[in-house]
């Protein structure tokens, strides 16, 4: 036997009898994995208007048993992130968590008989992740990010007692936020070095370079920061201009290094 289930996350408010909700989808991200299919039309930044169907995506989950399918679908709904507009996702999770539903003993009047399924602003689920088990905690990260973004653009809210002028100029007796220190570079960093190992390579060629390395008594270091920065950690998303800004500092700080692995 094989079972499958399909749900349609829609931009609508179950607490207002599924009235469509409009606005901008600020985040549109989905779960995936074995037995999961996603068909959607949305994207981050999508404007939801009242003129079209409020369904923006469909999730299909399948499994060997009904329990497995339901468990999979719950994970998909728990892990997806559709933000900026009200959705029926909490309602869908409530439904999938209801014992009558998981027992397969429901009729077409199931939703009418269980109006509490639609109470999405107080929903609680039995998930391993505590942060995701209570709908009131779900948006904590977004709220913090919005708060920080608002502070960055508009300054500290004066109603909380902060004086943005003092924070900005550091004229308070003890500044609340210490400014990060930025190393001062000498006017011409290149005068401060003997040309480094690259000079040896340029003068002596690969063979002479290898010989000089073998004769060197100390330990030689290879730095991989740039490789990690623009190849791995940020997955080729670090821009050249950002690397260039730190290049002088890097050349100075690592002037005695054997090499920088920064490519490949």
């Amino acid at each position, binding site marked *: 036997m094989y079972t499958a289930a399909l749900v349609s996350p829609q931009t609508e408010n179950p607490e207002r009898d599924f009235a469509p909700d409009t606005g901008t989808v600020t985040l549109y991200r989905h779960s995936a994995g074995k037995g999961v299919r996603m068909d959607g039309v949305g994207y981050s930044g999508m404007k939801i208007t009242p003129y079209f169907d409020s369904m923006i995506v469909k999730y299909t989950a399948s499994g060997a048993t009904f329990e497995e399918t339901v468990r999979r679908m719950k994970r998909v709904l728990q892990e997806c992130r559709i933000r900026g507009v009200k959705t029926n996702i909490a309602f869908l999770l409530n439904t999938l968590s209801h014992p009558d539903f998981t027992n397969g003993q429901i009729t077409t009047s199931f939703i009418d008989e269980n109006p509490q399924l639609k109470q999405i602003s107080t929903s609680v689920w039995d998930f391993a992740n505590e942060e995701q088990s209570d709908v009131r905690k779900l948006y904590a990260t977004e709220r913090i990010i919005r708060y920080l973004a608002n502070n960055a653009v508009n300054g500290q809210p004066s109603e909380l007692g902060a004086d943005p002028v003092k924070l900005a100029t550091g004229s308070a007796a003890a500044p609340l936020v210490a400014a990060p220190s930025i190393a001062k570079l000498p006017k011409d960093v290149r005068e401060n070095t003997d040309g480094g190992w690259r000079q040896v390579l340029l003068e002596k060629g690969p063979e002479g370079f290898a010989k000089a390395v073998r004769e060197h008594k100390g330990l030689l270091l290879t730095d991989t920061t740039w490789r990690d920065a623009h190849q791995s950690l940020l997955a080729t998303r670090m821009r050249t201009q950002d690397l260039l800004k730190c290049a*002088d500092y890097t050349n100075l700080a690592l002037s005695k290094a054997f090499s920088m692995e920064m*490519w490949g």
Partner: protein
Amino acid sequence: MRFLHECPWERLEMLREKVPNIPFQMLLRGANAVGYTNYPDNVVQRFCKQAKDSGVDIFRVFDSLNYLDNLKLGVDAAGAAGGVVEGAMSYTGDVADPSKGKYSLDYYLQLARDLKDMGSEYCEIKFR
């Protein structure tokens, strides 16, 4: 370059200009160059030449299976381009464990000799 829509060669050249004192080093997967599939030999050769011209000094050449023919292509291409060739051995075993069969100390010593004979300036052990 994926995502950024920048030219990888120009990026290398600009960074080279700003960092004159430190050798730039890259990892070359033998016949796979910097990808996860094998490329035609002349692509690897031209790639190494362009990389060297744009600023790469040291080519760390390895093959995930220590397969000599694949290594040789990378070592030759990097050497012909004028780069410093660092032959790398992929080491996943434990030479202290006799039950590892083929992958004994002798295996790695022989691999190091092969890399040297191929033309690698020095050898590296790449732990994986």
